[in-house]
């Protein structure tokens, strides 16, 4: 026990040093590449409760993989057993070696190869003792069981609940092989040592006992430890260049995200950190609807991230619908959609714009501005329904884009034209505020999202019409009769997942139809999204058909949506009538439910005129 060294540890030490140096360099680069605003967020975050929250999240996500578990228990077990098991092996190994050496600052290899230096108490007496040997064997068993799942997943992904699994690059395959061999190699090496010394617990002890029956393990002890060290070192040599870079990167991402850092053009290094934290687990493959209609095309986020990390041109970059399903499914919380958006180059479209100024002519003030949106002009049914609802509720409102010559700027943004989008934003902000309205209602979730997220409109509330209708119903400003029909609800991506508007559409639909509709934020994409710039119409149609089939699986009388684009996309692909939530409301309005005496009031619905 006095000599805690053998030449084989050098292999591991070299490999581990590569990873270590790389990681320290990377963390420096990630922090240095942040914008000064983001850096101060990090600085303040370190001295706040957010640090502890980040620590807890690191344990629950990086080790236990709680999110994966909640999505897919089998896959969760696989990730948990490998990550948590390995972590515990390292932790307990460290404690054990420190316990016996009494030296906290010994070289890392001492605890890694501890069983070689100290075979432990004699077997079988020690086999069932709740000592270090037992605990170490328990976690090794856990890891090995996870490994079994991993191997099954690679060859029969459906058995672990995944339809598809990531297609690997050669270097990833090499690292994967090394990873797979680490634990069996450890098992063999430890069993060999235990066999030679007659020690070990239920796993290593039993196996070592069996070995000693068949042959003399002593001459094989050193070669097996050499092999184990070699496998470990190969894995660590490869780690920085493969998807396994996520192992050290993920905790860093969790901490910075908890401190409030987000993907932005100002902090390019944070995008790099996100990319490194992507483990290519393949959960986004099944979330992506394009997997069905564009089989074999590597359009999904894990491929996108990998290409970007390798400095290559991301494949199918303009095909992605930016629906956000992958982003909400991602167990690591990589900001997949913002990363994609930043990669779309600004080509100068929209910069020559000069939009007509509107509203506020002759000092005419209104309480509510109605912004239909470009697309809604192609679905006049929504506009006429909104007219009916506004008039019935007795609101004083103004149809802002009656001539259809305005745009919110989000389509430009989705196409990468950020500069033009922000110019447009500034222009519209001014126009909105000049009107003096206290409320802005829009019919288009695309407009709603950018109004809600990016527009600075002090004193003005922004509502999507589904929210507005829900409030009108709640405050009994309008009354609707039950339709007696059943309905399915298609959540528009930008409204449900994108903006988190889930409760209100559900309320409106439940008051109209007898279907128990509860939007979940995990809706499908209709295929019409403006994100998919390059997507050919046939592919869009195929996405729409697939989504419509899933939505109408229970044969509802009507398919309700809350977006003009979704409505337009679904109409040709389903025989079930497609209606906007506003149309359904207007159709079942009970006349005379508004209070005429308040018709002229400026304080309709509690929205004050914005001075």
């Amino acid at each position, binding site marked *: 026990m006095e000599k805690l060294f053998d030449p084989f540890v050098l292999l591991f030490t070299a490999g581990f040093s590569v990873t270590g140096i790389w990681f320290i360099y990377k963390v420096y680069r990630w922090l240095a590449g942040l914008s000064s605003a983001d850096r101060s967020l990090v600085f303040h975050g370190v001295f706040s409760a957010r640090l502890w929250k980040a620590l807890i999240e690191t344990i629950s996500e990086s080790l236990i993989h709680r999110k994966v578990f909640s999505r897919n228990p089998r896959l969760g077990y696989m990730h948990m057993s490998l990550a948590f098991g390995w972590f515990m092996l390292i932790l307990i190994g460290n404690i054990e070696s420190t316990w016996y050496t009494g030296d906290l600052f010994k070289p890392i290899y001492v605890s890694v190869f501890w069983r070689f230096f100290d075979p432990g108490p004699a077997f079988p007496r020690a086999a069932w003792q709740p000592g270090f040997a037992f605990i170490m064997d328990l976690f090794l068993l856990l890891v090995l069981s996870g490994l079994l799942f991993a191997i099954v997943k690679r060859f029969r992904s459906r058995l672990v609940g995944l339809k598809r699994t990531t297609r690997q690059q050669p270097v990833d395959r090499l690292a994967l092989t090394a990873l797979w061999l680490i634990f069996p190699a450890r098992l063999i090496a430890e069993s060999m040592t235990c066999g030679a010394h007659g020690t070990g617990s239920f796993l290593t002890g039993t196996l070592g006992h069996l070995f000693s029956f068949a042959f003399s393990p002593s001459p094989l002890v050193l070669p097996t430890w050499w092999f184990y060290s070699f496998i470990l070192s190969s894995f660590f040599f490869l780690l920085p260049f493969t998807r396994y870079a996520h192992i050290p990167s993920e905790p860093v991402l969790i901490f910075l995200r908890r401190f409030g850092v987000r993907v932005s053009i100002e902090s390019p290094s944070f995008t790099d950190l996100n990319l490194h934290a992507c483990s290519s687990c393949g959960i986004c493959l099944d979330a992506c609807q394009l997997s069905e209609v564009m089989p074999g095309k590597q359009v999904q986020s894990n491929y996108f991230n990998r290409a970007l990390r390798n400095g290559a041109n991301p494949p199918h970059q303009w095909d992605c619908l930016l629906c956000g399903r992958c982003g909400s499914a991602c167990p690591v919380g990589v900001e997949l959609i913002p990363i994609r958006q930043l990669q779309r180059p600004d080509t100068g479209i929209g910069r020559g714009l000069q939009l007509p100024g509107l509203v506020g002519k002759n000092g005419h003030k209104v309480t509510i501005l109605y912004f239909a949106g470009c697309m809604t002009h*192609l*679905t*006049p*049914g929504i506009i006429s329904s909104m007219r009916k609802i506004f008039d019935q509720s007795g609101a004083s409102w103004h149809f802002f884009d009656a001539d*259809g010559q305005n745009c919110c700027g989000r389509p430009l943004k989705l196409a990468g034209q950020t500069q033009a989008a922000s110019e447009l934003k500034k222009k519209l902000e001014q126009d909105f505020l000049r009107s003096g309205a206290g409320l802005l209602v829009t019919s288009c979730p695309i407009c709603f999202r950018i109004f809600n997220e990016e527009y600075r409109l002090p004193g003005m509330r922004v509502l999507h019409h589904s929210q507005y209708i829900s409030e009108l119903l709640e405050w009994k400003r309008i009354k609707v009769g039950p339709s007696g029909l059943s309905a399915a609800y298609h959540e528009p991506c930008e409204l449900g997942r994108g903006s988190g508007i889930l409760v209100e559409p559900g309320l409106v639909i439940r008051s109209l139809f007898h279907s128990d509709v509860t939007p979940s934020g995990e809706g499908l994409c209709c295929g019409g999204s403006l994100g998919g710039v390059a997507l050919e119409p046939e592919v869009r149609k195929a996405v729409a058909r697939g989504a419509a089939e899933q939505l109408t699986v229970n044969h509802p009388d009507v398919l309700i949506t809350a977006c003009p684009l979704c409505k337009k996309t679904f*109409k*040709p692909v389903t*025989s079930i009538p497609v209606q906007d939530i506003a149309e359904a409301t207007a159709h079942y309005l009970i006349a005379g439910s508004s209070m005429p005496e308040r018709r002229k009031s400026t304080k309709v619905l509690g929205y004050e005129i914005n001075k």
Partner: protein
Amino acid sequence: MPREKPYIKSNRQEIPAFAGMTSDAQPVTGNRQPVTVRVAVVGGGPAGMAAVGALAAMHIGVDWYEKEDRVGGKLNNYHQLFPDRVPASEAFGQLVKGTYHNHIDRHLGKAITSVGVNAGRISLNGKDHKIGEADAVILATGFDFFDARHKEEFGYGIYKHVITSADLETVFADGDKLLNVNGSAPASVAFVHCVGSRDEQVGVSYCSRLCCITGIKQAIQIRREYRETRVYNFYIDMRAFGRGYEELYREAQENHGVRFIRGRVSEASEDEQGRIRVKAEDTLMSRPIKLTVDWLVLLIGMSPSCSAVLSGKGEREKSFTNAENPLTGSAVKGQPGVFLAGCCAGPMSIPESVASGRSAAVQAAEYLNKKNGNSE
């Protein structure tokens, strides 16, 4: 769906030619000879009328099925027929004359939803039961008008002043007036070509062929009735292919001052007065157009209604049925004894439908002769 016509002043008159045209109004011709074979004709429109007349004239027994309670099909709703502006009732009269024959049994109000070929006999089925049997079948199920509500951007069913060409034809046929929101003659009317034709957005790749000439004819009718009304036709390509069509096109321009603008209308909106604002491009000038009209008329295309009968499939799988050798005959592939007549094989004008009906009758007769070994 019956359309609300608030601004249309109803002035319905009994049109003399239609009066008394019931099944027993005409003398029944032909001797009731014993017939050994029977052919079923599905559909009572022009093609069906032509087919039953021709079959009876060849001494073949006919079972004639029509889903409505009167024959004539869409001809009943038409006012005047292009290019000569012959009253539809006159054409109907000529066609229906041949159908009062001892060999023809009418089955009105009977909708055939599928046909089944089985060992030389063909069964005709309704929604849930068998309706009849025949040795050969001529499908003359015609077409459906494209449902203009599928092109929501034109606002049909949403704006009161957007109507289809079929609506306008009933306005003419009923002698109704087409007035503007103030109750006076319309200042302007615009026709939109290719609504439900040549449009991938609604899954229609073909040209319906007859809408161009319908637009020309109806534009002239409006100009004849309201001398001051400006009439516009927004077209992608003018396809005036038939006898007298090009002449009518020229007449519309020269004598009636109808303006033809090469550009597809992309959307319509309603202004405060209820007038219709139209956006398009004059593609020959390369400049966008804005126009406000009192009425917007959508020239709706033809949708197939026949393959549902053939295959028993639902509404969504509709398509025009291709004949086995479309250049030389109208027999349906894989369904011996089934022939197509009229618009179920593709958009056709009335003379084409009539010719197609007669042709199918001859082909059915040939088929039966061959099958029964009658080599005369």
